[in-house]
């Protein structure tokens, strides 16, 4: 895989500066509530970046992400119960999620478009039911569901979990950058536009999509595990819930799908949104859904995309729409 080093390094300095600044926040006394929101932002950004990779660049509208999040979380929790340190549990979570992605890629990759979407919708549902029934460890159940407490989570300080999340987030940003600016990235863009021409120009369509799927699963699993460490407990209905899909879809779409900086902008907005909607628990998802639909209809390029677009007119495209039948 060829890598264009100058392209890779472009714009890296401001990113490093921001990352260092963010890392210092808990040390310099930024208020705890801010830290928590930033924590959420890191998690959401990691998730959105990975979904952008799949949906924006590979044309895979994956509804399967909750499966990786939940698996990452549960792996970490189960390992914690048998004494594995949480950090290792997180990594194990990423590995398990990636392996699972390999497994389900068999049925799911032969599908395209809608078949792929519904196929990926089924997977988290299956896992939710399995984890509702299955009691992998004899530990104490949390609450009245099939939840588990995360053993040792209370020993992790806010600062530590903040840094964990920051690392996960930075990894996701670097991975996206690396993929997009290397050979793999160019391949992905043309696959999304037209798989058959891409294939005929020598790009291995399957391999590109496959690797992206695995990578996305791993980082998503990692983020999920980090999240559940901070939560302190995990239970199936919320771990594999479609709410996750809404979060990462919304973040990507608001910011701008298929744009490298899109998920970052979107994740900030989603965190703010959650803050605002926190007291309207019942309607929160409803409003998020309305926003999602509205943005897709009115400003499908997202915020970043709209900013870039202003000033470019497309008379040719309008002409095309006039004269060609669907």
């Amino acid at each position, binding site marked *: 895989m060829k890598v264009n080093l100058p392209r890779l390094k472009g714009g890296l300095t401001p990113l490093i500066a921001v990352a260092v600044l963010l890392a210092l926040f808990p040390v310099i006394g930024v208020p705890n509530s801010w830290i928590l929101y930033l924590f959420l932002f890191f998690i959401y950004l990691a998730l959105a970046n990975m979904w952008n990779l799949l*949906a*924006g660049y590979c*044309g895979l*509208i994956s*509804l399967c992400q909750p499966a990786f999040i939940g698996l990452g979380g549960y792996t970490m929790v189960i390992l914690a119960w048998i004494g594995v340190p949480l950090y290792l549990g997180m990594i194990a979570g990423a590995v398990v999620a990636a392996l699972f992605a390999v497994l*389900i890629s*068999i*049925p*799911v990759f*032969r*599908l395209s*478009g*809608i*078949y792929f*979407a*519904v*196929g990926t*919708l*089924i*997977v988290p*549902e*299956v896992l939710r*039911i*399995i984890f*509702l*029934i299955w009691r992998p460890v004899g530990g104490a159940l949390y609450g009245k569901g099939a939840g588990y407490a995360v053993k040792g989570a209370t020993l992790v300080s806010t600062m530590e979990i903040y840094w964990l999340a920051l690392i996960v987030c930075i990894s996701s940003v670097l991975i996206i950058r690396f993929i997009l600016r290397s050979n793999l990235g160019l391949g992905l863009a043309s696959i*999304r536009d037209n798989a058959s021409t891409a294939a005929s120009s020598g790009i291995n369509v399957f391999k590109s999509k496959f690797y992206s799927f695995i990578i996305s699963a791993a980082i998503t699993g990692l983020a999920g595990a980090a999240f559940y460490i901070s939560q302190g407990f995990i239970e199936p209905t919320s771990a594999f819930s*479609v709410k996750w*899909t*809404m979060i990462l*879809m919304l973040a990507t*779409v608001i910011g701008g*799908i298929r744009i490298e900086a899109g998920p970052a902008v979107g994740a900030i907005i989603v965190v703010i949104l959650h803050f605002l909607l926190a007291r309207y628990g*019942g*309607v929160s*998802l*409803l409003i*998020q*859904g*309305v926003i*999602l*639909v509205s943005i*897709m*209809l009115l400003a*499908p390029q997202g915020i970043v995309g709209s900013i870039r677009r202003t000033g470019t007119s497309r008379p040719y495209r309008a002409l095309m*729409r006039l004269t060609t039948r*669907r």
Partner: protein
Amino acid sequence: MNLDVLTGLATPIAMGILLGGLYALIALGLSLVFGVMKLINIAHGDLVLLSSYLAFTIMTSLGIDPILSLVIGMPVLFVVGFAIQRYLLNRAFRISMEAPLIIAFGISIILQNLYQIVWTPLSRGLTTSYALESFGVGGIRIPLVYLLDFIVAIVVMIFLREFLRRTYLGKAISAASQDRGASQLMGINTNRVYAFAFAIAMVFAAIAGVFLGLTFPFTPQSGVSFLIIAFGVVVLGGLGSIVGTFIGGLVMGLAQTLGGYFLGAAAQMLVAYLIVLIVLGARPRGLLGR
């Protein structure tokens, strides 16, 4: 041979077959829309659920039997479905490749949440007097409502088959789903045909919703399982084949009842879902379809 096991199995098998008819009915609507318009509305299951909730409200506030309430339910479902199709999804197609899916997903979430707000997360059911009756055949007892589901499904399927075969509009729907351009050249107004196919699909969805509500309790999230079941039936039986859809329905119905019999009620959907995934992996175009 342990006779007890056999008689034990007879009930879930019989119920699975009867249930299969209903599942085929849910899938028919999806199949029509997908075959003709080449799109699956991910919110289809939630639309079916709308019919269940509507019937519930009409039943509890007006005392009208759910099946009779279809007189109101069918047009409502058609209007809602049509509005979603025309004003949201159709525009989505011109925006980008991923737009229709994302928007349909958004609509699904909106509907689910709307149901939760209006009807609370409590599980509901269409409990009528006859829904609780059971009848005996060959030594086993089966809830009457299952038989009703099956009969309705068969009647609807026969009706659809004859309609597609014998009428001009029916043939036009078949033609438009096979080759859109050629059917336009034959003088078929494909927009009108699509609207009609869609209307039929919504009517089927309405009927399915009522009978599902009579058969099982439902929650705001039930739409997702309806969608997966319908999708599974379509994948199993193939698009465009009514007989195939029926067989697909039978498989899903049996998967659910036998799954519940062997693994317990919590796992009944699990077997069905796994079968869908396995079939998707093996033959995405369906076992029987084209």
